[in-house]
């Protein structure tokens, strides 16, 4: 039992990170119908921004320092997101799906290769901003401070996001734009600004995910966003792309599922190296049964 609880904590922990990144995918898709393949790399940019802020200021373990690094990296990533939207995505917004997708892949390659060229491909140790101690729960099960931190911060961010979307003016505009871009424009909404804001918001959440992961597994490298980004994207589709609670649900589901495969798979003959296949297997099953995802709404096709 204690082992199971431990695995559940481990799973929810990475799931929370996937969820934070998945939110960005889902928001952008909801508004532009664009699969933003560069989003995983924004998560990497966030982690690097946090790394350099912490290093330049010589921050040691302190709550204030952590908060500062977290907010700083979110701001940097938001700026990256907005610049990318303005200079790469806006010019191709009206073109065919394929073209926008290739642009997104181009941006992703650009960020990865730029960071490799600037900082090298090797991993860097992320400075520890908290003194990581472990609290025993019961039996063997324990939870570490960095794990609690991930849960606390990601829940807080999701609550703030929910508040922005449903309680503020800009959130209402976002919902309007995602409902129908052209009608929103006719209603006098500055759609370009709203789209940019969406990118900023999604990028900031991914950056938070990057800094939090780095507290938990302290290596960052320019290619860290590829697999994590892909899984987060799968999480977004799983929950129903365009749907915010769906993204969170999808992220947690994938995190738990892959940890369980690693922990218990060998009992039923599945090696731990199948962990990456789990996310995709669940994805395909869900897509075949319910193509719009778990919480997604089916869109009736127009004839």
């Amino acid at each position, binding site marked *: 039992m204690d082992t199971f609880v431990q695995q559940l904590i481990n799973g929810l922990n990475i799931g929370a990170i996937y969820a934070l990144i998945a939110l960005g995918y889902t928001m952008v898709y909801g508004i532009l119908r664009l699969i933003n393949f560069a989003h995983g790399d924004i998560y990497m940019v966030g982690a690097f921004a946090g790394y350099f802020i912490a290093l330049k200021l010589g921050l040691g373990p302190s709550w204030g320092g952590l908060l500062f690094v977290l907010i700083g990296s979110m701001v940097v990533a938001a700026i990256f997101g907005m610049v990318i939207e303005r200079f790469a995505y806006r010019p191709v917004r*009206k073109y065919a799906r394929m073209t926008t997708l290739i642009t997104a892949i181009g*941006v992703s390659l650009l960020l990865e290769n730029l960071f490799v060229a600037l900082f090298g491909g090797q991993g860097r140790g992320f400075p520890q901003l908290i003194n990581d101690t472990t609290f025993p729960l019961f039996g063997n099960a324990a939870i570490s401070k960095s794990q609690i931190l991930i849960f606390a911060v990601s829940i807080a961010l999701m609550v703030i996001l929910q508040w922005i979307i449903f309680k503020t003016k800009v959130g209402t505009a976002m919902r309007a734009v995602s409902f129908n871009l052209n009608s929103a424009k006719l209603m006098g909404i500055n759609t370009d600004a709203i789209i940019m804001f969406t990118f900023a918001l999604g990028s900031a959440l991914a950056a938070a995910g990057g800094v939090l992961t780095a507290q938990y597994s302290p290596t960052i490298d320019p290619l860290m966003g590829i697999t994590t980004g892909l899984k987060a994207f799968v999480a977004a589709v799983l929950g129903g792309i365009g749907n915010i609670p769906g993204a969170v649900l999808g992220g947690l589901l994938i995190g738990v599922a892959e940890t369980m495969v690693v922990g218990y798979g060998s009992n039923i003959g599945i090696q731990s190296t199948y962990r990456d296949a789990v996310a995709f297997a669940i994805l395909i099953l869900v897509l075949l049964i319910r193509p719009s995802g778990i919480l997604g709404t089916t869109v009736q096709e127009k004839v």
Partner: protein
Amino acid sequence: MISFVKRFLIALIIIAVLYALNLAMSKEGLFGFGVPLYQVDLWKMAGINIILAVSLNLINGFTGQFSIGHIGFMAVGAYSSTFMTVYYTQGLEQWLAGILGASVAAAIVFALVIIIGALAAAVAGLIVGIPTLRLRGDYLAIATLGFAEIIRIVITNMNKIGGATGFRGCVDPITNITCSDPSLGRLTIPAYTNFFWIGFLAVITIVVIYNIVNSDMGRALISIREDELAAQAMGVNTTRYKVTSFVISSAFAGVAGALYGHWRLPHPNDFTFVRSFEIIIMIVLGGMGSITGAVLGALVITFVPEVLRMLPGGVYNYRLVIYALLLIIIMITRPQGILGNYEIASWLKRARKRPEGGGAIGGSTGAPIAEQSDSTKKSEKELENR
């Protein structure tokens, strides 16, 4: 009759040219001269990329179904064919070599395993295609991506074909490392692939896809791309056509895989989704729905990163950054790709029509696919409709 003789002559010339090129690219060279071996490698890669791009274009360009799992079928082709070579064809090759000589025997066996690779990939295409092709647009893309990743992860976990460290030759079933006992299978995968095979199969791919596109089936596929519901209403069995084109496309990816597997030793990392993206970039860059464009895109994507390797010291490190930037700039300034849906074959036809008035190359193929709606316009319409 005339067209038959003409076709036969063209085929003969192509084979002769490929044979000469193959000699120039071999270790011995043509009359002692040859292409530098480093560039030979690039040309081989270019040929394989052409097969991949042209075949993916059938799905993505002509049928309008968005697949990003092409590399998965290449992996199936690569691994199934090398699996046969390593474990099963050694005896057959030795027996044939006794009758026909070593080089002919190797060629026959290689042709056989290429067919096996293509069939295995086609079966995989069928298994993946039937359930996923019901999905539309981005969902199809994601599902194919998922399948390709699953294929790669399964390969990574199969010790018999080398697992995560790549397939080099037979693996001992007990110790799970390269075997030292030759009776279990070949110790290394023989390097059958040469430029002739690659060039020949690239030409075959282009000819087959060209003929499909310019046949009744091709017109059905294009009608699906333009408007699936309308096509259905007109009595086109859309599911059947979509699955068929998917299976054909997968089979050619399997051919590319078999060629790759018998040249470089296959490794799971060669078949990541990033490589799938690369193939899509080739067809979008060259021009969606153009075979010529796919060929051009494959050449550009193979050679440009290597050309950028020649950049001087300080800039050299940024070569892949420049590559990515070029990609974005091209997409922004020329979204329809370099060639759009322009075909060299239709240009040739038009050029010949004026003086002679008729008689297309290769005889009685249908009208070129000139009438295509601009995909840009379509997307705008999509956006308005939402």
